[in-house]
């Protein structure tokens, strides 16, 4: 078995609305798979289908080589889930909730619980009602991490956590994959996905629009160039493969398709280059390309320029 998760043409409707409209997802065993998409794209619905909480209308879903709707119990012994908006029982303490989850899952390590509480700076003696959003999130994270499972389903797991905790989380995920475990990471924190994910899928309006390794996706994309020149670069705007060209007081910004890069640089050199920054597209830019009809050109330009 090489795929931990396989979804093919999965459709899920809620009355008149179609939440998943032919979603495809393939997560290889042992990888961290980034799962990206704008709000309402169907990320949480996908994870709920994988958990067997929702029944999909058509398509194929295989999770660890089993059917998440039929083999729910045996599957749930092998996975752990962290929702993005954690709701807890207000009259229980964090420690009690971690224990209940751990025992329901079939056992957990007390030592690992203490270790994780310490690493995430969580006070397990406080009642859940007194926890902030970030602390509720920590309870869910710790209770998932104390169990010895093959697969982790993370739905925006670090929302509300501070940067230190975010770093700790990334460290823990690296340990998990080092032990051969699989992680599906739905996230809005692009830096997190960029640094952790081996491969990623982008979902929009219930459809998978892009899937592959970050390198694959970058290959499809453009190089962003910021250059200061003595002479105007206005001629560049006409060249094939140059996009979004702007020039303000001798400082030009544009994107170039990979194959045209050589031509563009040859045109650029005679204009008297004073400084030049070129970088591969960030995940942010990749995403903006996929969401672009929702983003105004100004926002897009601003983001491209600043990144």
């Amino acid at each position, binding site marked *: 078995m090489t795929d931990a998760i396989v979804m093919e043409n999965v459709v899920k409707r*809620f009355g008149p609305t179609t939440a998943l409209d032919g979603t495809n997802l393939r997560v290889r065993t042992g990888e961290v798979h980034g799962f990206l998409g704008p709000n309402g794209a169907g990320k*949480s619905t996908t994870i*709920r289908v994988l*958990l*067997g*909480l*929702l*029944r999909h209308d058509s398509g194929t879903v295989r999770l660890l080589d089993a059917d998440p709707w039929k083999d*729910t*119990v*045996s*599957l*749930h*012994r092998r*996975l*752990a*889930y962290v*929702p993005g*908006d*954690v*709701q*807890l*029982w*207000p*009259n*229980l*303490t964090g*420690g*009690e*909730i971690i*224990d*209940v*989850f*751990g*025992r*329901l*899952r*079939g056992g957990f390590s*007390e030592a690992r619980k203490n270790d994780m509480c310490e690493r995430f700076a969580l006070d*397990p*003696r*406080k*009642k859940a*009602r*007194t926890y902030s959003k970030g602390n509720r999130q920590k309870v*869910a994270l710790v209770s998932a991490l104390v169990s010895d499972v093959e697969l982790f389903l993370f739905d925006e797991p670090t929302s509300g956590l501070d940067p230190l905790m975010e770093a700790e989380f990334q460290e823990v995920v690296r340990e998990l994959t080092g032990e051969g475990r699989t992680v599906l990471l739905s996230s809005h924190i692009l830096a997190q996905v960029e640094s952790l994910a081996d491969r990623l899928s982008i979902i929009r309006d219930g459809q998978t629009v892009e899937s592959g390794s970050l390198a694959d996706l970058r290959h499809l994309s453009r190089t962003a160039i910021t250059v200061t020149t003595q002479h105007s670069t206005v001629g560049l705007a006409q060249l094939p493969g140059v996009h979004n060209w702007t020039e303000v007081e001798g400082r030009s910004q544009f994107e170039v398709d990979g194959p045209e890069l050589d031509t563009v640089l040859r045109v650029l050199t005679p204009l008297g280059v004073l400084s030049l920054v070129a970088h591969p597209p960030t995940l942010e830019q990749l995403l903006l390309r996929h969401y672009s009809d929702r983003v105004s050109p100004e926002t897009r330009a601003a983001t491209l320029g600043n990144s």
Partner: protein
Amino acid sequence: MTTVRETRETELAGLPVLLGLMVRRDRFTITAWTIGMGIFALYVVAAIPMAYGENGALGESAGLFADPMSRLLIGPAYGFDDPTFAQFVTNGYGLYFLLLAALMSILSVSRHTRADEQTTRAELLRANVVGRHATLTAAMLLTVIANVAISLAILLITLLVGGYAFNGLALFAVGIGLTGVAFAGVTAITVQLSEYSRGASGLAGMVLGAAFVIRGGGDLAAVGGSTLSWFAPLAWAQQTAPFVLDRWWPLLLPLAFAIVTTMCGFWLSTKRDFGASHFQVKPGAASAPARWGTALGWAWRQQRALIFTWTAALVVGGLAFGAFSEALQDAELPEIFADLFTSDDLLMGYLAYMAKFMPYFVAAFTVMAVQTLRSEETTTRLESILAMPITRHHWLFAQLAVTAVAATAISLVVGWATGVGAAVVVDDWSLVPDIGWATLNYVPAVLVVLGLTTFLFGVMPRLIPLAWLLVGYAVFLGSFGDLLDVPSWVLGISPFAHPAEMPVERFEVMPCLILSLIAVVGIVCGVFGFRRRDVSGG
């Protein structure tokens, strides 16, 4: 420098907008309550003359309902010797209009204050230009508006359909509205005490329950009530005795009560932080007992607070109702009774009635237990549990098993408590096991309610509140079915109509078996339905 006037304006800043928002949020709720209470009024005004035809027939039956036991359930029974329809409707049914208005008010205040604060919706509101006292003021005003709407609806319907005199009806309608406002005042206090809207409503509900029991004891003792009656806010509106004494002054009591309690509520609200309560929160255990890690153990952990609260409340109620046996024995009987019953028969009839009355509350407990399951689902906490290696039917069966066993235990304990209350005053300890068996005999009927609620949870979870209709139907017909002379099949829809009325009648096994079967079918269908549907929430 701020003047007093400016301070007041600041504290109430945003009031009109807040009130507008609350009216908008509650437009269906208030309309539904108004229509519902209007239909109730229409029903009693239209049904009584239909059932009794001429005034003479009413006089005979009404005499029956002036006995001490009925007074416990309907009030001081003013003008029941030879009542007109107007007297009978207002004095016979008034208590239930008062109860409903009080309930509506409790839920309304709690929903718009503590429920918002608990979910931090109020935080969003308070971050705007909203004064410290604006929310509670708006919630109180909204509840006053709702009570006015209900009173007007009742007044209009009884006036147009019943055609009774305006003065008496106005007294009746205003009494209902003021009682509602009085309990809104109680809730203004309880929402400061508890951090949870359910806890706040529960506390106010306990005050309502205590008021019902206290005035029950007072009214049972004598026609027109006794001193004890006057200690209960529920009794004041009834003491106006519409169409009999037609006195307005008792209404000053709920008015004053409402003002004082509301003031207390405002004062308490200044003594606490936003989102906090007057109860302290201590650090708890860092780890959980092993038994919580099983479906059954977890179900018990989740339900135990609800179970203990209901047991405590019902045991106190049972002891009180049992103890009223003494007043029942001392009370003078209407002549019509003296011919028919000895005082012993009356006592046993009363206790048999109580053995049927207390299980209504146990049925209400089972509905609330299933509603808690539903709220686990809608708050997405259930999602976390079902992401564990535990099947849905395993989880649901465990929860229902705890509810069913608890319902059985509560029934038995409450029966014993009623028996103890009676045994102490009449010095007959054989009553204790007798009443215990009698309440236990209604457990299958309680389980039918649990079965229906489970069925709704599994198949049509949004319609769970419909289960309250069955409970309300059972209580209403159980209390007034004989009075209204309704056909037996109408009575028979209530599961509580079937078990033998022990200890007066002998135990019958068939009703128990059939009711149990219906309960099991409902539960099984519900569990299967839940297995097949999506888990919603979020």
